[in-house]
């Protein structure tokens, strides 16, 4: 294939396999100057693998990458960064002990003299952060940031490289609407300056808002490249999934039962104040708010991951003391964290071992694990959740992000909870799987399980919740019923 001079980047016949499994099979791809090119596909389609190869983080088995007319030979990250390719990684890659500024300029410090000059770096980083409109102090250590803030740091880092090509692998999965809007604006500016962007996201509206062309991968195969405006949503989904999906949100007809859980005047200094809500069996309570509003902190407190200062947690009419996740699980509370890498799964253990981890005692007699029961349950759940894997003995670290999320949800489900807290449950989940998870939520409520769903995706909140609590800066600003709630109203209460 002759390379097109318009193309800043061209990929030919790229293949890569892991332990004999083809993750990428003969991929074709081209990227034009100044375009935003979406890369779409289900979880595990091979998008991240493809991008890591482009960046030089993985070595391809075969194939060629041509950048600005030249074949990338050595293909090292360092070289590629220098040539003008940068990447926002799906799994946020930051150094926790360094400051925001030090992270943003990591690997590029020489631009600021051979002795480190943290003053210059701080100043420069603060400028970039301000420009983007994130309220983060450049001198704070990364370990003190929330996951969304870390994501913003990653974005700042990629953008500040003056790159010609920026790869964005699910940059918005950890962001709320506000920041997403900010990012999309930034992308438009970059595009105007001639920067080419490869954009990966499972959020359809973003794709249609900013991308020019879409390339679809399915099961490691190249499927098609189309102009965005010539490909409607259903057709796109069909290309990705190989079938059609019509409704985004399944209908929920679960009966609401008794009040089974409530929280009274829950407070933790500096995080949230006087939180009050109750939830009935079979109900979905959505929690909305901006980044840093304190939603995750409330969930962590209820689940016993953090101590709270004051207030009461009442389960089925009894006041309960929850001091650890162990207590929470014993009391029938389950939690799917927003940070699955840190809190969700054990990377070196198999799908089966992860799924059964929280309920292992139920599969055990005395001290011994009954492996056949465990195997059965894990197999069934893995099938129900449509986890894409070679077997349930595959290590979770080798799964795609979306499939990892399903494993985490599976683990919580297996504890037979009465209350499930889902913190950003569809983060990084493809559209087909999202629908599965929504169906799953409905199955839960059908069984009389109460669900608290924290989400930064307003359509999801509106589509799934019976009632919606809105938080702003740690304070509860509204508790809306499904009927009163609209996107605008929620935003109003959230910025309050």
């Amino acid at each position, binding site marked *: 294939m002759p390379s097109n001079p318009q193309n800043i980047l061209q990929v030919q016949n790229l293949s890569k396999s892991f332990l004999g499994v083809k993750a990428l099979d003969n991929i074709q791809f081209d990227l034009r100057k100044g375009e935003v090119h979406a890369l779409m596909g289900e979880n595990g389609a091979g998008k991240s693998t493809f991008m890591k190869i482009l960046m030089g983080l993985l070595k391809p088995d075969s194939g060629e990458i041509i950048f600005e007319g030249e074949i990338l030979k050595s293909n090292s990250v360092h070289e590629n960064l220098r040539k003008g390719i940068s990447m926002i990684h799906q799994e946020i890659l930051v150094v926790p002990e360094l400051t925001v500024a030090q992270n943003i300029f990591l690997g590029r410090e020489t631009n600021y003299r051979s002795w480190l000059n943290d003053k210059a770096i701080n100043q420069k980083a603060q400028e970039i952060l301000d420009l983007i409109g994130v309220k983060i102090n450049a001198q704070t250590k990364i370990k003190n940031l929330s996951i969304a803030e870390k994501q913003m740091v990653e974005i700042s880092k990629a953008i500040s490289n003056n790159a010609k090509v920026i790869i964005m692998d699910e940059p918005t999965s950890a962001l709320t609407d506000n920041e997403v809007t900010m990012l999309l604006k930034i992308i438009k500016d970059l595009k105007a300056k001639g920067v080419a962007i490869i954009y990966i996201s499972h959020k359809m509206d973003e794709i249609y808002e900013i991308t020019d062309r879409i390339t679809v991968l399915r099961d490691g195969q190249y499927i098609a490249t189309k102009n965005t405006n010539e490909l409607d949503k259903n057709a796109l989904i069909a290309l990705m999934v190989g079938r059609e999906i019509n409704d985004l949100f399944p209908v929920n007809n679960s009966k609401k039962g008794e009040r089974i859980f409530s929280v009274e005047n829950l407070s933790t200094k500096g995080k949230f104040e006087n939180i009050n809500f109750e939830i009935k069996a079979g109900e979905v309570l959505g929690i909305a708010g901006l980044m840093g509003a304190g939603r995750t902190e409330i969930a962590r407190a209820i689940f016993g*991951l953090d101590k709270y200062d004051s207030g009461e947690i009442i389960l089925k009419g009894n006041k309960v003391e929850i001091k650890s*996740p162990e207590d929470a699980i014993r009391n029938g509370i389950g939690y799917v*964290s927003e940070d699955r890498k840190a809190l969700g*799964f054990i990377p070196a253990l198999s799908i089966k071992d992860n799924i059964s981890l929280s309920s*292992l005692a139920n599969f*055990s007699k005395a*001290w*011994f*694990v009954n492996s056949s029961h465990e195997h059965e349950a894990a197999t069934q759940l893995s099938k129900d959740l449509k986890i894409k894997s070679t077997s349930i003995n595959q290590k979770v670290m080798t799964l795609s992000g979306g499939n990892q999320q399903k494993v985490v949800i599976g*683990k919580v489900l297996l504890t037979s909870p009465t209350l499930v807290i889902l913190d950003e449950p569809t983060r990084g989940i493809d559209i087909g799987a999202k629908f599965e998870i929504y169906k799953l939520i409905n199955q839960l409520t059908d069984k009389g399980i109460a669900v608290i769903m924290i989400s930064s995706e307003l359509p999801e909140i509106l589509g799934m919740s019976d009632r919606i609590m809105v938080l702003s800066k740690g304070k509860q600003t509204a508790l809306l019923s499904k009927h009163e709630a609209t996107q605008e109203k929620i935003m109003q209460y959230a910025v309050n």
Partner: protein
Amino acid sequence: MLNRLRQYGIFVVFIIICLILSFISPQFLTVSNWTIIITQASINALLAFGVTFVIITGGIDLSLGSMVAVTGVTAAMLAHPDTFPVALPIFAGLLAGLLMGVFNGFIITKSKIAPFIVTLGTMTIGRGLALILSKGRPISNLSDSFNFIGGGEVLGIPFPIIVLIIIFTICSITLKKTLLGRYIYAVGGNEQAARASGINVNQVKMAVYSISGLLAGLAGVLLTSRITTGQPNAGAGFELDAIAAAVIGGTSTSGGTGTMTGTLVGVLLIGVINNGLDLLNVTSYYQQVVMGIIIIGAVVLDSWNQKKD
């Protein structure tokens, strides 16, 4: 099958080394020699099994050698003929080991200090304790029944080998088949996630350090009985051999992975090399060089083996 072999890459390396040795030395592949190899390896094995649990949780135990000394001296003090039944010194040795393990676990879980530094502290304390208890002198003149543990035979099999087999089986089952085993992997694989999955991380850590102490106690009793003396300076450096065996056998020092079978192979590998170098009468200076090269070489070979997909 081939895949399984590859998984146990170090096992292949082990077999190759054995083959080479049996070509060079006619005595190597005899029943009596292997009885000796395994008997000699039994003490390192007990320590290595214990520390395997610890390392899988992402920790380390440097106090093994000192625990061997303290427990050995404790047992010896109570093993004088005709004073107490033989169960007492054994029990006391095990208890001393358990207590030191519990101490390690307690400090590590309560203070969140790196296990490296805590067990380094215990290592120093333990050495001092052993010397204080024994007043710096070997304690000898132990009862025959006590000396049987390390020196006796049952059906022609030396008792230490029998102990080795029993403990290996228990440890292996614990790691593979029990709740505790699964939790050990989980804690080492991702401590935060383990906690969020409802695992009592501190309990698991207490358990592994206690087991490690208990097995060090058993090793101390066995050693004391084998050499028929309680030696306050016994066991110096044993921790490094035990950790080496575990790591050679595939246990990752960053936690989360490892098997008892791997550790056993690691222990035997070290034992075979020691034995082989003596059989071949390699000068002691060169023994150390060869030992070091083989350890690194074996692990390098193993890692290459695994990388080839």
